[in-house]
């Protein structure tokens, strides 16, 4: 079915984007309150891309980083990572990967690799391998063992990214599963998550 990107941006989808963005911001705040070592700051992007599709997900990711970027311009650079995340997560959801456990595992693995690469590219070329977060110490440790910058950065990203992806995905998935059918049915990409059987 060819419907074009414009079709994805219904008013409902458009209203979900700010919610997704604020969720990411709030998720970040809550992570700080709970003093978690991992920032649960991608739930918004994941959640929105799952139920509203890859392109809406991409915009959510972008906007989230732009909003953070007004306070911390480093975030502008990493917008690319969030966009990749939204896009991948959205397409996988569209292809109904997240309806079974194998799909979820494979999906998360791919998302992890893709975002680790994207983040590696950004941090290596724009910021000399640095992200400004605590994980930079891990990168430093890899470098100290004599690894090249690019491999050290990617290794760090893969390790920290695994926890990140799993936790962010788990939280978003639990929430998506709790969204009432009545709402999912109005969304262009809500169908895979509708609980009632016998719906085309």
């Amino acid at each position: 079915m060819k419907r074009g990107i414009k079709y994805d941006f219904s008013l409902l989808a458009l209203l979900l984007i700010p919610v997704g963005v604020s969720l990411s911001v709030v998720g970040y705040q809550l992570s700080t309150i709970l003093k978690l070592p991992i920032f649960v700051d991608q739930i918004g992007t994941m959640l929105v891309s799952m139920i509203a599709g890859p392109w809406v997900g991409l915009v959510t990711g972008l906007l989230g980083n732009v909003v953070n970027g007004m306070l911390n311009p480093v975030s502008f650079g990493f917008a690319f990572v969030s966009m990749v995340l939204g896009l991948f997560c959205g397409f996988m959801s569209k292809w109904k990967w997240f309806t079974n456990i194998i799909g979820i595992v494979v999906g998360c693995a791919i998302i992890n690799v893709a975002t680790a690469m994207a983040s590696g590219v950004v941090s290596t070329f724009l910021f000399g391998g640095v992200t400004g977060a605590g994980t930079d110490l891990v990168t430093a440790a890899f470098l100290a063992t004599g690894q090249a910058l690019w491999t050290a950065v990617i290794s760090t990203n893969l390790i920290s990214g695994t926890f990140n992806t799993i936790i962010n995905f788990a939280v978003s998935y639990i929430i998506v599963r709790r969204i009432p059918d009545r709402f999912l049915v109005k969304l262009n990409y809500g169908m895979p998550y509708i609980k009632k059987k016998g719906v085309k």
Partner: protein
Amino acid sequence: MNSSIGKLYPSTKFAVMLLLVIFSIFTPGYVMQYLMFPLVVLISLCAGTGKQFLGTFFKSIFIIILFIFAIQVFIISNEDAQPIWGFLHFSQTGLNDSLSMTSKIVAISSLVICFFQVTNIKDITYALERSGVPKKVTFLISSTIQLIPQMSALSKTITDAQKSRGIETEGNMLIRAKAFVPMLGPLVLSSIQQTEERVLALESRAFSSRTKKTSIYEMKKKTADYILDILCIAGFIAYILWRVM
């Protein structure tokens, strides 16, 4: 925002920022780039956002710059590395790389931070709308900016409520991680529920209308804007000529 810089038309400020960003990217060396910092501080002081600017800069960019120097100069094993102690060594290549990289980061970040601090988002969306950007885009920007503080406030209320109901926010990591979902769940579900109703409310305000949108808020370009616009164009042309010659 009430300073004379704050009152400039957003596209004027954007043009100035863009020109300085171009200078910072395409000029070799690092001296000019580092000089952008005092320049931006000066602009911020004139606009009355000096304190704000320095706060943001040192909280975000300054740290990352220290990290870059540390990693590039002392840790990465370049060929010219001179051992200092253990895995630490000094590398001239690393220092040169850091200087050229951090100087650009400092310049561009300072300009961007400053731009957003002296420009009202409302003015930006107004200017975007006037220049023919689709209504959906400006809507997205304004609604996000308006929603975030509301959601933050809401999350604080929910956190307090959950705490008073005895949900553990202290203790070991697993316990704290478990607290996350019950804290966020209600927030998400209620905000999603609200989007559903807000669609109807917005449609009742003719959101989908295809007529060109007008605006009750008005902002006009003033003489200062035109002068600055011309200066920017002239500066750009002069820069190209200088770089090519």
